[in-house]
């Protein structure tokens, strides 16, 4: 499955990518990382339906355009993206206000705390259903 990770911190991107690959959610080549929300947004709004990832992991706290802003713009520019692709917030924040806000955003499928745990990855695989590639997973192991 194709996975987009959006985070302004290089460390975070490294960790998430490694854990996603370890967890068997996606092959390394299918994990695309973006250091700014704007870059991710232009890719997501500019590609064909087939090129869309099955999953987007989105950090909240970013300069210039934060995660919430990203979602607002995406909802305006490509509202139909929800049908092709699940978007999860991946944040270090423990603030309940963020959780509450995430629960009420229709663009989102859920919120995951950093660092992403193997349990979370299993949940993502289960929720993703058809998107999970057993072969790739074996490769990971």
């Amino acid at each position, binding site marked *: 499955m194709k996975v987009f990770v959006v985070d*302004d*911190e290089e*460390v*975070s991107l*490294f*960790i*998430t990518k*490694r*854990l996603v690959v*370890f967890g068997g959610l996606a092959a390394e080549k299918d994990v695309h990382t973006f*250091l*700014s929300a*704007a870059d991710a947004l232009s890719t997501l709004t500019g590609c064909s339906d087939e090129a869309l990832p099955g999953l987007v992991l989105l950090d*909240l*706290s*970013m*300069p*210039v355009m934060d995660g919430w802003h990203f979602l607002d713009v995406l909802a305006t520019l490509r509202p139909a993206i929800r049908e092709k692709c699940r978007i999860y917030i991946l*944040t*270090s*924040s*423990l*603030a309940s*206000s*963020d959780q509450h806000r995430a629960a009420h955003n229709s663009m989102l499928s859920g919120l995951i*705390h*950093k*660092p*992403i*745990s193997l349990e979370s990855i299993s949940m993502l695989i289960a929720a993703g259903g058809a998107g999970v590639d057993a072969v790739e997973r074996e490769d990971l192991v």
Partner: protein
Amino acid sequence: MEVSRDVSVWEKIIKNSLDIICALDQNGCYTKVNEACKNILGYSQEEMIGQSLRCFIHPDDLDRTLLVANDVIKGQKINNFENRYIHKAGHEVYMMWSGAWLKEDGVVICVGRDITEQKKARQKNELHQAIVEHGVDMLAMLDQELNYLHSEGSIHRQMGYTNEQLIGTNALNYIHPDDISLATDLLSKILTSSSYIKVPDYRFKNAKGEWRWIETTISNQLNNPEVRALVANSRDVTERIETRLKLRESEQRFKSLFENHLDIVLFQDREGIIIDANATTLSFFGVEKEEILNHPFSYFLTPEVIPICDKALRDALNGEWVRYEATIPFEGKGTYTFDIAKIPVVVNGSAIGVYSILRDVTEIHQYNKTIRRQAEKLNNIMESITDAFFTLDKNWIFTYVNSEFDRILHTNREQLIGKSIWDIFPEELNGEFHRHYSEALETGKSAHFEAYLKHLDVWLQVKAFPSEEGLSVYFDDVTEKVKSRLELERLSLVASKITNGVVITDADGLIEWVNEGFVALTGYTLPEVAGKAPVSFLTGEETDKIVLERFIEKRMQSKPFHEEMLNYKKSGEKIWLLLEVTPVLNEAGKVSRFITIQSDISYRKEVEESQLQLTKDLFNQNRDLQQFTYIVSHNLRSPVANAMGLVDILSMISKDSAEFNTSLNFLRKSVNQLDTVLRDLNMILSIRDKRDTIDRESIPLALVCQQAISDLSEPLHACGAEVKMGIDESINVQGDKAYIYSIFHNLLSNAIKYRASGRSLVVNIECMSNTGTGTTISLSDNGSGFDTESAGDKVFKLYKRFHANSDGRGIGLFLVKTHLDAMGGHIEVTSEVNVGTRFLIYFK
């Protein structure tokens, strides 16, 4: 023979007699007549003999002659009887007869002489005498020096001088001195002339010394040998002259009256043509006499008034005196009202023309109009007096009553006029009203009083003014006021015993009464505040305006309410008062006054104030805590989460793999980051704690700024930046040196960090203003800038970053703001993407 000869002689005598000698028979027929008849009467002897004397005598003298003849026949002799015969040629012949009866012969013999010549001469003389004696002319003969030689005629009768008195005197002595020159002039003229000269009227003194007007014709007869004198024929023309003078005077008088008449006077003929017009006419119309004469008067009139004037002219021409008033508009002069009289001039029973006198009564008309208008106005004024008003004559009789009187006292004024006030209000006779009115009339001084009219249960406030005519009285129904005053007195009695402040105001909120409690609370006494609105002197600068407005608004609603308000005592000391306001309503449900009870709640308010401050502080602290929570959840959790993730990864991969090293490096970085955040927090908290205790010293801005610049000289130099520092060295601000250093250091670091890639950095630092209230420093760069609109006020928040791909932590601007907050200053920013950023820093 002798007799015969005698007879012959007699016959000859008779025959040659120049007188008629004749004989008549008893019947009056001529029997004999001599030849003289032919000469005297034109008849021959033959023509007369046998004819009756009747045939020859003048018919007028016949009867008389026959009577005399009869007497003669009776024997009476007659002499010198005169009668007239008619000559054969037809003219009269005067005869003088003598006659005698000859009885024996039976005949009358008569001798008749023709006395026509004598008779005529005598007649002429008598006529002359009569003319001279009884005529009007005075005759005089004068020598060349005008000395009287002779006088005759009526001079004696008219002038009273006898001929003797005049002769030898000089005529000039009698002539009026003013006329002497005239006389002497004429004398010189007459002496060289031989004809008549007429001396016009001159004055001549009569015997009584009166001056008489004389007209004289002088003929120079000096060269006539028969006369040798100047012959003067004079006539007394005094009456004529006087008549003429009188006539002239009367004409002059009339002319003067006409010309100088102050009214317009003009004379029109039967056709209405102006024949004459006086000076007033000319000046009124502004024309020369030639311009108005021979024009019809209608020429000067507008069409609508012509018929009126024409009719008046016709009536006048019928011999009537016409008098009418007309309002006549004149082009360019406005409208005039004239009182016009038309007087016909009647000659021989018919009017030849009409005099018109036009008196300008425009002003009088105007006056009359004004008077009428003023009378109406006066009436309106009397009617519009909002007080009830009436006048009485000296016998208490109503002479005027206005409608308000009727309204208050339920009367019908038409029935009051002409009646005595005490007949209308008998119960008040000898009452209070009567007493005041009588006193006013007696003393001539006006009376002002309040009295109760029992039968209507009303209190009246009365002003009565005595005058020549009687009494003018104004009054007003003050029942409500009086009752309300009585009530106020009762209310005050109760309120005076209360220790709270009590204020009684009228419906407009003006103080009528305050109690001792009010005086104790505010320091103001009743005389100081009566008639004033409490808010006008009790409120002050710190009184909440909103509360004040609400207070005034609530008072309008006529319901009880309360309000807490900061008031000021007379001493200026603040006092918090609870104001409980109760409106007092009258019978009609309208507010008649307010009762306000004041309670001193200053102590409670102080407690409330300190509680409010506490709450405010708590709120701020809580807000800060919330912010910290967020910081902890994001910025503190972030490196921790990373560390946790890396630890997971490290446990999953081989120690020898390249990723292990990478992960280990990242772990170190994360832990360092964690440390940085903790240090930041510590620093921030320390600034916050120090906020109320920082040392406020005078800091030289330029020096501190220069310090920051030089400490950053290395990175500045590295990127080729230029810093233009324009702050004057004399400028000092109050604050903490370290904070100020930090402000410049952070802002300059940001400028370096966020410089534009395509151009070398330029930073301008200058002082915008430096006054007693503060100093404003501008720090601007030409860097990459950011979108001010989307960043909003977040730029100064902790860990907010606005540039991607940079190593900024989002704490610099937060610190700048925190430092300025701690020193009581603040900061503003404007920025444009790819143009630059400008900070305005306000130091207190």
